[in-house]
């Protein structure tokens, strides 16, 4: 099964670029959902002798990242009645370019990190760094609140990639807690998006500019 690893990681990286280059919010939600599902399978491939509790965790991760959260975000999107990120701070071409540069740097940097010998050949660390970078880009360069939440989810996916290497260090309780926090965070953000759309008749965070020095 290990030969499946690299294709999955490369697909996850490709989805980063989809998320950066697409303006249709629904497209980005789908890309992030697919990325979440793909990553959800990784623990099974890396640790074939997984516990039943581990399998439960895989199922919950996939359900949450692939279905529940995307459904919730699409619901929020319909409610706020928006389909597109119209005017990002940094345009789509530039975002893609920055994403590519970041991915390249991630690969170079991770080759200088002292990895354990069993991980040296794997794409996990560069993929993780590149995905975290993509999440940051989305968070800082998109104006729509919902796109920022998607950026946060991509960032979390990047963390998850690194976490797969450390499955033994993260007991069940903590993994479950991280997932619960993620879900609650998105849930609370969704509620705030609802309030933003009611208050301003738009969910663009440009309106959130009253508080400054």
């Amino acid at each position, binding site marked *: 099964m290990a030969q499946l690893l690299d294709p999955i990681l490369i697909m996850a990286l490709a989805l980063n670029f989809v998320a950066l280059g697409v303006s249709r919010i629904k497209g980005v939600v789908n890309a992030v959902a697919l990325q979440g599902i793909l990553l959800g399978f990784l623990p099974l491939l890396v640790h074939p002798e997984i516990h039943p509790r581990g399998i439960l965790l895989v199922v919950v991760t996939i359900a949450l990242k692939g279905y529940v959260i995307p459904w919730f975000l699409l619901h929020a999107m319909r409610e706020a009645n928006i389909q597109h990120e119209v005017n990002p701070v940094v345009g789509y071409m530039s975002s893609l370019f920055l994403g590519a540069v970041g991915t390249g740097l991630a690969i170079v940097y991770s080759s200088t990190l002292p990895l354990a010998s069993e991980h040296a050949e794997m794409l996990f660390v560069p993929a993780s760094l590149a995905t975290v970078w993509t999440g940051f880009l989305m968070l800082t360069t998109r104006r729509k609140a919902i796109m920022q939440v998607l950026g946060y989810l991509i960032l979390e996916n990047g963390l998850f990639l690194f976490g797969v290497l450390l499955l033994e260090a993260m007991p069940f309780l903590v993994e479950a807690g991280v997932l619960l926090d993620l879900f609650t965070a998105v849930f609370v953000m969704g509620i705030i998006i609802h309030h933003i759309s009611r208050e301003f008749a738009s969910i663009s*965070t440009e309106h959130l500019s009253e508080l400054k020095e």
Partner: protein
Amino acid sequence: MYEMLIVFPLVMGACALAVPSNRIRPWLLPAGGLGNLALVYWAVAHAGDGGASSGAEAWLWLDGLGKLVLGLLAVLFAICSLYAPGYLALRSDRPNRLFCANLFAMLAMMTLVVLAHHLGLMWVSMEATTLASAPLIYFNHNARSLEAVWKYLLIGSVGIALALFGSFFLAYASLKSGLEPTLFFDDLVREAPRLSQPWLRAAFVLLLIGYGTKMGLAPMHTWKPDAYGEAPGLVGALLAGGVTSCAFLAILRIYQICVAGSGAPLAREIMIFMGLFSMAVAAVFMARQRDFKRMLAYSSVEHMGILILGIGIGGLAAYGALLHLINNGLTKGVLFLSAGNIHRAFGAKLTDQVHGAIRRVPLSGGLFLAGFLAITGSPPFGPFVSEFTILNAALGGGRYLAGGLFLLLLAVVFIGMGATVLAVVQGNPPADDGDGRFHDGIATGLPIVLFMALVLMLGLYIPAPLEALLREAARSLEVRS
């Protein structure tokens, strides 16, 4: 036995959700706050001797540092909860079900941060404090608080995501050295000399940035003025005195691992720089600050800087920083609650509209002024002692540059903050619709007096049990060469 400390506030929170009456519900807060104080007192008094190792795989454990922070949280929450019924009675127009429940949830999660001896669990509970406090900041349900809570949630979540990355790096440092990968704090401290140093260094930087965001160190402090400016004073006091203290504790845990490994010379230099930088940024933004609640947020940035600076200098300064943690938490209680009262009395928080507070609300205005003198390090209040201790240690240790800058920045902050505070307190209150909307009363005044009395007491003498706790906690931060 430690589970009780977390279960009790959660049960109280559930009760708050269940009580139907908006008028009766707030009284659960003082009951819960005082109950929690009693439980914490019992736990601190009966915790095994904190110096001993907790044995293998302890999830929850109360060590010297933990006792100190837990005690501060319990006192802070108890006094704030005494203030709550009076405040919420004034805000009877707003439903407070979520407000009360989330205050308890926040207390439970802060307690869990302190007790957790597994870095993953600590992370989960720290993120949970962010989520629990978000609805508290949005209590006023207007456009400004909406903006504040969005920034708070997003910046806080991203910052803390970096802390998770740092925790992973820490676990990888143990994996790389051929050890069983672990995030149990006591294992990591024990194995620290054998951890892979490059990963440990990277982990420290990420964790400092991550938890530093929650703590509000510059330049990751940008959410702070918005959140503290828009949140009710009561929530501001708990955020500035409680949540930031928890984040500071998280940074101290990482620091302990670095110290046990290599004495952490690099980590200490970074902390000294971050501390002074935070103080400088705060000093710049406090000058000519017209919004007195935002001013308090910058004061919080400044004092987080002082804490980190003290730890970086080390030795006696670390003791000073721990004492300052207590002093800062209690003085922030005075400042935020009295600022909240003044805000109520004038219906504004800009110095253009607010002056003559000492005439309109003499008690709150006077306490606000006294709190200002205390937080800027004037004798005879507590912060004077702790700031003086840090300065003394810096100069005694030959760190003249750091000590000199520390003194200079304290002076700049005093002048900048003083201008705003005096503008609020002095002068004649603007002519208003005859009777002001808010008057000082026992319910909203006495808790602030209690805070002030504690701050004054800590300036005059430190009770022996607290002194013992401080020494025990400072010992655990000592750098052995």
